[in-house]
């Protein structure tokens, strides 16, 4: 199993490498001159040239890319003008826009995105797994219909609609909740949760349907398995048959899926962050893409990519750990 994980992660590194190449390529062809954008609205050619040199944009892409890699493994030095800024490995370079180290930018945003992802995860698991389980047990009944209907509606509505509705209702009309603005967990846990409640809900509503379906189907699958019959045939209460055996059997895929979704969410839930004004990684990405801030974009993509890949591996391993019948090859 460790061997498997290591092999996969090795492959992951390769994937990440390809990712950086892909992004560099994309930006090479994409329009918009970073130098001009970084220089400001009205720069004369001379200035733009200076900026271009400073950002190394005059060098051939290959050189830029190599330096980037070098920074990644060995770190790089930049000039702040007055002093030398050392950016040690893994160095993702400095933002074109405001010369702050990309790693710092990411570090700034990570807590937000993490809070968002983890929080909503808890919610969507409660919501999704609960619903799924219920509809699996009340199969064909009205309960199931209603529940599935609700969760479907959840997936059917784009998050920016759900989100806005939530804002309107809970913040504007009822004023039960504050308009979300990120408060660091370290500063004030209560406010933290309070402020994130809506974004969490919005995301959870979106995700839970998937989980409801998954839980439902895999619970049914397990209930159809022979060992369930065994315990029934041995007089075990239906309740504990379901909770102890059926649910246990239904969980592995759910766990795996959770890992995967978390992975992607660490890439930032762009729409949500944008809508609720949460300074997360997603927002950073949207912004940076628009102003062609290559180092930041590469940084985010690398981060996201890493998250996704790790998530993939973790998902497989978890799945295998949880369900011994799964073979890792």
């Amino acid at each position, binding site marked *: 199993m460790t*061997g498997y994980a290591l092999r996969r992660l090795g492959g992951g590194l390769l994937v990440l490498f390809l990712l950086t190449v892909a992004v560099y390529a994309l930006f090479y062809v994409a329009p918009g001159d970073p130098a001009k954008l970084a220089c400001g609205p009205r720069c004369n050619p001379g200035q733009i040239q200076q900026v271009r040199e400073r950002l190394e944009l005059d060098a051939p892409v290959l050189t830029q890319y190599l330096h980037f890699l070098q920074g990644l493994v060995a770190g790089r030095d930049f000039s702040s003008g007055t002093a030398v800024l050392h950016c040690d490995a893994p160095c993702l370079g400095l933002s074109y826009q405001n010369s702050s180290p990309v790693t710092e930018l990411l570090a700034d945003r990570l807590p937000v995105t993490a809070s968002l992802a983890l929080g909503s995860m808890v919610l969507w698991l409660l919501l999704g797994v609960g619903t799924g389980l219920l509809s699996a047990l009340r199969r064909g009944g009205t309960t199931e219909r209603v529940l599935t209907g609700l969760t479907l509606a959840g997936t059917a509505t784009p998050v920016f609609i759900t989100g806005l509705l939530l804002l309107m209702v809970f913040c504007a009309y009822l004023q039960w909740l504050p308009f979300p603005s990120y408060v660091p967990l370290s500063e004030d846990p209560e406010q933290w949760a309070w402020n994130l409640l809506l974004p969490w809900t919005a995301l959870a509503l979106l995700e839970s349907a998937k989980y409801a379906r998954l839980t439902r189907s895999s619970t049914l699958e397990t209930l159809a398995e022979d060992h369930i*019959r*065994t*315990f029934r*045939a041995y*007089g075990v209460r239906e309740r504990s048959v379901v909770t102890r055996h059926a649910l246990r*059997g239904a969980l592995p895929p759910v766990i795996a899926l959770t890992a995967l979704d978390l992975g992607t969410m660490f890439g930032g839930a762009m729409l949500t962050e944008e809508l609720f004004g949460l300074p997360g990684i997603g927002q950073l990405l949207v912004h940076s893409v628009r102003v062609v801030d290559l180092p930041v974009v590469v940084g985010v993509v690398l981060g996201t990519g890493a998250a996704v890949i790790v998530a993939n591996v973790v998902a497989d391993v978890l799945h295998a750990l949880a369900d011994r019948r799964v073979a890792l090859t």
Partner: protein
Amino acid sequence: MTSEEPAGTTGAAPDLLKPDLLKPDLLKPGRSVPGRPQPDPLVEVRDLSVAFPGGAGAFPADGGGAGGGDAGGEGPAAVQAVDRLSFSLAAGRALGIVGESGSGKSTVAAALLDLHRGTGAQVSGTVRVAGTDVRAADERELRRLRGGRAAMVFQDPLSSLDPYYAIGDQIAEVYRVHRPDVSRRAARARAVEVLERVGIADAPRRARSRPHEFSGGMRQRALLAMALACEPRLLIADEPTTALDVTVQAQILDLLHGLRAETGMGLLLVTHDLGVVAGSVDEVLVMRGGRAVEHGPVGEVLLAPRAPYTKELLAAVPRVDAQPDGRALRGTRAGRDGDGSGDGVLLEAVGLRREFGGRRHRTTAVDEVSLTVREGETVGLVGESGSGKTTLGRMLVRLLDPTAGTLRYRGRDIGTLGDRQLRPFRSELQMVFQDPVSSLNPRRSIGESVADPLRAAGDRDDARVLRRVCELLERVGLDPAWYHRYPHEFSGGQRQRVGIARALAPGPRLLVCDEPVSALDVTTQAQVVGLLGELQRELGLALVFIAHDLAVVRAVSDRVAVMRGGRIVEEGSTEEVYERPRHPYTKGLLAAVPVLDPEVSAGRRALRAVA
């Protein structure tokens, strides 16, 4: 047993069901065991009927939920799985319920614990088990009965245990259900105790391992342990050994025997295998199409059967000890001496070897095997699961590429040919597969399936193809009119016939049959084996007959090779191997085969006990 629709086994000729055979007096339970006053029999079944609503098929253990999701559309309106069945079982006695798939035997077993509750099955009649009126009992009573007074052991030991929990814990859980006052650790102790009892070595440690870490036999033992945990008065065993190899099967049966002797609990053994019944029960109830055909002491039923159906069953059972009389597949060996070319050697494998898996953990399935097949002869290949016989068979027809060794077909090395050069030989080497379900494409009509090889061979003349296909279908005993029907419309036996027809289509010289009948009921088995025999004689085919059932192999083969762990441990003429086995493994195998004569099997058991 994979998918035989219940109806599928109204197989035998209708005239076998003479009404007079079903005279109630024949079926009176007491009748066969006279002078045994039973005030309160352990099991009392009266007029039990079970019907499944449409779409369900019979009780799945009889093949309803077919393997390979593709089988079966919806079933007929409703299936009468059990029809007004009555019997009783006295405490401490053992009753064997025998029948082919669809006979409803497992349905009966399930009915004893009313496992049909809430499944939509329509049950009528009365069932009393250990003093409980099962059908009237409320949930609590029922739970107390289930596992407490009557425990059940199922066919597939792997899937019957929860893969996620340690075996000990599962047993403990069940134990505590019936002994709520017992502490967890006491329950665990109990689990270890029973595991020891069923002969699990190092029980305290093994109790903590999960099912997938156990071998098939150990799992079945574990299930038995679970059954024993609460000292039930009745043990219901539904095909307890079907999924096991002969040797293991023997051990389990012995264990069962021992347990009964020790605890004095009653046993209700459901099986399709008369051999299994012989050594393990006092009475036998033969079922068919949901009805009792014959009921009596095991000796009488097996040795002096009354009901023609029973007779037919017995006749169909191949005997490992039988003298080679009307051998089904005994090749005529015609023309073998005829052409001098390599004294008729058709296919010759020398030092064949096959490995699986990547660099790390690679396993050797077939190891330095050499085998010769002559024109028109039948070579039997026996071995237990995992002995590599199937791998070898597939290599012989080049479905698998040998890792090493040479494969000569009529002197020409075909072991290393690529797909293209292989084409000309493909038609000459064909195969009949084990699973009648997965071996036919569920989405193509049987006619198409049979026509494929012809078309692939480049025959563009549809008329001719159609004609040939119809001939073939007819030859294997199917109605050409069924050309356009789909596999799921047929019974297992019929499907196997289609498989044979498809194998014959290209006009092969050698046919490798991989467990061709092991998925079929005995009667059907006999018919298919018969068919193969006729074909061989007609077409002068050479056959490689792969099977785990020694009896079948004996019945069909000129020569026999015994495989184990990828090697051929013994090879020789059928007589030599069966009458004078040299290799201890072969001896063991033969000794393990259940025999129909209760006396003999008792003797065998004694021997095994000593050994």
